[in-house]
């Protein structure tokens, strides 16, 4: 049995203007569908990564899983013991007026905290005395360690990590990614890892889901996704990653921008930017079959 499964989950947000404006200007209600019919499962012990550009719905999926939002349609089923979330901004997610001891101890305050807090701090590579300090005394990387210590307090088996290293410098990012992988093997954790950075994802993920305009467009084992991407959007994303090797390979220039989610294109949401789009793509929404949602792939055109 998978640890977590999402069954055709959708989430709408009402972004209408205030009632009076709507009445005066005869505007209808406006609804933004941030996540649209997303299904996937996460097996115990694996890292599933979700990637995509801003506005693709990946963070909304994270919030649906931990229950910060309720799904408009579909359901989220969790079979594990406990889940926790790690946020992107280690500056905003720690209360500046609390000592680290209280921040880390708060979620487990009914379990008797003292020694446990120190153990948690040591586990994430901080020292036991750091509990007496305030968040501002720490660098960004150390703060993210504090967030991780706090998340581990209740002995979760599932961690939802929303861009956990995006606010950090690369050398610190490497420290945090290595720490997360150590903790995973030591504690048998399962991760849902959300990131816009494909290189980071390729270092941590077992499987990768690519999202575009609220839909899952491809979901494959990481090795396959990075060596043989199938969906044209996945190919485009991979092409856009700057080439550190300086191999001099020519990059396909990416065309256009993500469309306005309030007025998504007809048919396949990617068709206006897709080099392989035809009439069917403009008309008909592709089904998610065998790990990919693309007419061109299904018809073996690419």
């Amino acid at each position, binding site marked *: 049995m998978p640890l977590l499964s999402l069954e055709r989950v959708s989430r709408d947000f009402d972004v209408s203007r205030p009632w009076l404006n709507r009445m005066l200007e005869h505007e209808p209600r406006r609804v933004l569908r941030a996540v649209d019919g997303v299904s996937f499962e996460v097996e115990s012990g694996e890292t599933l990564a979700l990637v995509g*550009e801003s506005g693709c719905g990946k963070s909304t999926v994270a919030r649906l899983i931990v229950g910060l939002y309720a799904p408009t349609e579909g359901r989220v089923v969790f079979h594990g013991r406990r889940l926790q979330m790690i946020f992107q901004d280690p500056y905003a997610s720690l209360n500046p007026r609390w000592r680290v001891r209280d921040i880390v101890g708060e979620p487990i305050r009914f379990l008797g905290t003292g020694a446990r807090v120190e153990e948690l701090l040591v586990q994430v590579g901080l020292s036991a005395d750091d509990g007496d300090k305030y968040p501002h005394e720490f660098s960004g990387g150390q703060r993210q360690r504090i967030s991780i210590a706090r998340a581990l307090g209740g002995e979760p088996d599932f961690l939802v990590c929303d861009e956990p290293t995006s606010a950090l*410098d690369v*050398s610190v990012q490497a420290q945090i990614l290595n720490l997360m992988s150590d903790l995973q093997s030591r504690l048998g954790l399962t991760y849902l890892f959300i990131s816009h950075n494909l*290189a980071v994802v390729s270092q941590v993920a077992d499987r990768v889901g690519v999202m575009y305009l609220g839909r899952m467009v491809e979901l494959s084992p990481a090795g396959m996704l*990075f060596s043989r991407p199938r969906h044209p959007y996945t190919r485009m994303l991979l*092409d856009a990653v*700057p080439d550190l090797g300086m191999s001099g390979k020519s*990059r396909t220039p990416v065309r256009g*921008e993500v469309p306005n989610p309030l007025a998504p294109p007809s048919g396949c949401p990617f068709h206006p930017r897709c080099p392989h789009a035809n009439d069917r793509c403009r008309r008909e929404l592709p089904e998610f079959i065998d790990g990919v949602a693309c007419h061109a792939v299904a018809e073996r055109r690419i």
Partner: protein
Amino acid sequence: MLDVRDLRVEFPMRRGTLTALDGVSFSIAPGEVLGVVGESGAGKSITGLAIIGLLEPPGRIAGGEVRLEGERIDNLPADELRKLRGRRIGVIFQDPLTSLNPLYTIGRQIEETIVTHLPMGETQARERALALLREVGIPGAEARYEHYPHQFSGGMRQRVVIALALAAEPRLLIADEPTTALDVSIQAQIIALLKRLAAERGAAVMLITHDMGVIAETAHRVAVMYAGRIVELGSVREVIHAPRHPYTVGLMGSIPRIAARKGRLVQIDGAMPRLNAIPRGCAFNPRCPRRFARCLVERPDLLPAGTSFAACWLHAAA
């Protein structure tokens, strides 16, 4: 084109003076893109701000000199510097909204910059503004001319800022994290644009970023900064494929690359020192895997290392 010698920037504080930059020297030739890379707190943005005279008080240039086309610009009075910015130096910041006035249409803002700096009438300026918008790749430039900044997406706004920075044909373009706030697909478009413009116009470009990938794709030479100093300076190819300073070696190893399987990254333990606690000797010594006695007491300057330069005693002639 740009020549910076021994630049030193200080922030006098109540409890003593913080030195943000110390002994920073480099130059950029016409048509060349120099990448300045480093982690937060390395001093890369301060370097850019010092050159254009926009240091936040109490920050001030405490030593050294900055020359643009041979002429000293670090000691110019504020209003002369303001004329210089926009006319001979174009600036692009990370957040396009800091460079755009929300109350004016983008067309008017570009037009105004042109009229202020170039001997052109209104009609001519409008023609030029439209040409610039087309050049930076804004579709339907005529229609977009009358739009306000909030009506543009992030990528389009950054294009407008680039058009604005180029309006008066600057000789030097300073771009501070121009692509950091953008999605990867848009990032690639903006990088290509910057590269093309530098090549076509023969402007010198100083590209400040924390992203080595962006530098690899755009720059000719790169300066790696750490704790307010340049620790390595060389051609991009050399610095990426044969880094000479242990910090650059660690930095290159910690950058995740697309890999077919999961793996561990090289990590540099510790963090960049704060400005009030810069270690004696080489500032990198507490984190350096190859430190020896001399590193603890004596601060290295840039020394020749291969075809690059590295501020590291490993490269001192014995």
